[in-house]
């Protein structure tokens, strides 16, 4: 714990203990406020298994644990999070090893004004200039430690300002400053107040400061002349009229030579567009984006998932079924073009396609390509030029149709077909594009109020073949079966197996047992985990192979 954390804790302790204990622990909570929190403990035993490539773990037991404590009293709130990685579970960066108070803050909030001192998460617009967030499953925490202020001088007008340093495992790095303004014109312009058309405009500016460092150029004897202050700015709009919606954001970034872009000086920019329509039983959404050299970190020479200041929204579907999510798409912040169309429709009851209970269909298609670029140099140059509408190599394509239908009062079937193409270059290695066809059948049988059986069968046919030199264990044709039984409303047990029956390797079986009571959930699992990659919102983490026992405890209060 550093000095600041110790001071804050000392002040909090002083405040708490200057009052009699019976006042602290009264029925209303501490000091008239409320304490809430949650605890999560994940543990893992893994052993060596040459068939899947897992290794023995020297510590035997790996665990990630955290406890969030939040105190609120009227407009005031304070919180802290204790984290312990002893040692970090497989796939989490070893720099997490250790324990301590990783996050602490005090906050005061009124209807027009809010200030947070300490760690905070924040997002401007879609996050294209700034998104400080946390995803525990990715091992990602870009929290900013500093001061965050927001002010609403009038209804519909919000200003935000922040300054701080970003979390880097158990340390903080960089210096980030940001300003954001957002105006809801319907709230500001009196004559628009009742308009069906709603328009919100916004803009943000974020800059980082870094001192000098020696990064040698490709020319012997020369180093890069690095910019110390790098700025990014964006403008955005959100327009809606009835069921129609149109959102857009455009961001630009100044010269920012960094390890992600091979230290080139080209400016970055990104455009994100989304048009949508929805009404009862129907929704349609079309999204497009173009990202060119927009990786923005508070420390230029750090790779990996930490220290990102910004985020470019993913426009591929976040699949949940195993084979559909086997090849997730990782956003290429250095450059990509993408399109996504998403359509959902509910066939009403008592129609030809709706049947007795109605039918839901969900169609999604996305295509991501690289940019059309012309290389003009390497490190210490402008790097490349790109045409705005030109496209480069295909990175990823995905079409899926999901049909969900209640067959009877007790049976519900969800059937999905997916076609996916995946270019390994987005994971940093060469190879042929994989073309996969996936079928999923998910049948839920509600035996009675307390007993539910779920069956899941998946098949994936792929033109990829396992090659020991590349060692991509996802290749080949796969089948999978899963049976899950929920009983007494508290227990569940599931058994599953994934098997590469052609051109691949691996047989991954798993068995899990879980118990839930009130806000507490305990889960125990045993089986094999295939090495691969998990992505959430286009941000990814490598997951190494494992074979052994996992357990998880979560509770909140």
């Amino acid at each position, binding site marked *: 714990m550093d000095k600041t954390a110790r001071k804050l804790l000392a002040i909090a302790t002083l405040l708490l203990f200057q009052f009699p204990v019976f006042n602290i622990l009264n029925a209303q909570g501490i000091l008239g406020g409320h304490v809430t929190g949650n605890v999560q403990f994940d543990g893992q035993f893994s052993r060596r298994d040459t068939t899947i490539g897992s290794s023995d773990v020297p510590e035997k037991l790996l665990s990630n644990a955290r406890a969030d404590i939040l105190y609120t009293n009227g407009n005031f709130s304070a919180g802290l999070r204790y984290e312990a990685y002893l040692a970090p579970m497989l796939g989490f960066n070893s720099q997490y090893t250790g324990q301590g108070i990783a996050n602490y803050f005090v906050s005061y909030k009124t209807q027009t004004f809010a200030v947070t001192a300490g760690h905070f998460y924040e997002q401007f617009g879609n996050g294209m200039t700034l998104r400080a967030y946390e995803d525990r499953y990715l091992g990602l925490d870009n929290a900013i430690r500093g001061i965050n202020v927001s002010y609403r001088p009038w209804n519909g007008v919000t200003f935000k300002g922040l300054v701080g340093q970003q979390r880097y495992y158990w340390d903080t790095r960089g210096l980030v400053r940001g300003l954001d303004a957002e105006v809801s014109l319907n709230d500001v312009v009196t004559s628009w107040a009742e308009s069906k058309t709603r328009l919100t405009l916004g803009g943000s500016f974020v800059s980082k400061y870094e001192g000098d460092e020696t990064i040698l150029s490709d020319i012997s004897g020369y180093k*890069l002349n690095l910019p110390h202050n790098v*700025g990014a700015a964006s403008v955005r709009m959100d327009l809606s009229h009835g069921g129609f919606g149109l959102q857009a954001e455009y961001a630009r970034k100044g*010269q920012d030579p960094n390890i992600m872009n091979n230290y080139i000086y080209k400016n970055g920019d990104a455009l994100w567009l989304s048009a949508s329509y929805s009404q009862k039983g129907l929704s349609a959404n079309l999204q497009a984006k173009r990202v060119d050299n927009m990786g923005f970190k508070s420390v230029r020479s750090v790779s990996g998932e930490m220290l990102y200041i910004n985020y470019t929204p993913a426009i591929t579907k976040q699949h949940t079924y195993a084979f559909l999510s086997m090849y997730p798409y990782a956003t290429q912040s250095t450059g990509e073009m993408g399109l996504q169309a998403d359509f959902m429709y509910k066939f009403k009851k008592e129609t030809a396609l709706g049947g007795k209970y109605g039918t839901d269909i969900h169609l999604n298609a996305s295509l991501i390509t690289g940019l059309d670029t012309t290389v003009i140099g390497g490190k210490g140059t402008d790097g490349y030029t790109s045409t705005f509408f030109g496209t480069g190599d295909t990175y990823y394509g995905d079409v899926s149709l999901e049909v969900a239908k209640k067959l009877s009062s007790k049976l519900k079937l969800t059937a999905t077909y997916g076609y996916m193409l995946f270019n390994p270059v987005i994971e940093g290695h060469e190879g042929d594009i994989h073309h996969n066809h996936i079928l999923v059948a998910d049948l839920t049988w509600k035996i009675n109020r307390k007993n539910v059986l779920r069956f899941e069968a998946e098949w994936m046919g792929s033109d990829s073949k396992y090659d020991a030199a590349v060692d991509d264990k996802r290749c080949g044709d796969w089948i999978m079966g899963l049976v899950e039984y929920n009983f007494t409303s508290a227990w569940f047990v599931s058994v599953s197996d994934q098997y590469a029956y052609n051109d691949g390797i691996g047989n991954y079986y798993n068995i899990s047992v879980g118990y839930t009571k009130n806000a507490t959930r305990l889960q125990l699992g045993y089986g094999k985990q295939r090495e691969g990659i998990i992505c959430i919102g286009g941000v990814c983490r490598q997951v190494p192979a494992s074979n052994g026992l996992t357990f998880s405890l979560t509770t909140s209060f």
Partner: protein
Amino acid sequence: MNKSRTLKSIFAIIAVSLSLASCDKIEQDNYIVFSGAAGEWFDGNGVSDHSQRAIIEKYTGVRCVNCPNADIAINDAVAGYGDKLIAVAIHDSSNFTRPIGETPCLSTPDGDTWSLFFGIEKNGYPTAIVNRTLNGNNWDLFNPTSGINSRVDNIIGQAAQVALDVDAHNNNSTVDITVNLEFLQSVGSDLTLTLLLIEDGLVVTQRQPDGSDDENYVHNHVLRDVITDVWGADIECTGNSGEKRIAQFQYTPTSSDWKLSNCHIIAFVADKATKQILNAAQSEIE
């Protein structure tokens, strides 16, 4: 506070904040900068111009009546040979170089060192030497009012052993100098690199052949300073054919009387033992 004043205050705060946090813009020419200590040698990218050049050092003085004629001959030769001939005018501390009246002294200590070494005073003024070559066992000193062309032809007619180029930039009154070398033939001996600051267009009284003093005489190619050691800086190299080396130097002129806008940089590579010059190059200070 009314709405308008509040809004103005907010935008003022935002404007100040933005200006404080605005981003840096690096010009394309400055994306990369020299990384090492001044004079440190690294592997380079080679030299595109493999020309063999000659450098004529003329020892002169403002009281030397024959020196204006030598200037004419040298100026003619430079005009004729173009960038193949580089000229340096060295004012030593002989009686011929004492200023006339209140005019500035053009002598330099480094010029004195060379003058003494090459025995210029015994030879008289003007005296010149091309590439510090020998004539038999003696330095090939000559009166440059004639005999320049044969010596220059002899030098530039040979294939260069070492090609070099020099690049100089004025960076807030500090001159960043980059020298690239490429060995076109293997060279077995130790080599040195000498850098000179040369100023043109100096109006200083000069005694003329008729004995009169010309107050408006324009002196060119005047040695102002030897940037390296007077006998040059060691070149770290193997001397193998094909080798490419680069070094950068930061130089701050020691006198405010020197107008950098009228100056240029001369670089020459010499044999450390024999002092003979292998090749030379010059660059304006941009």
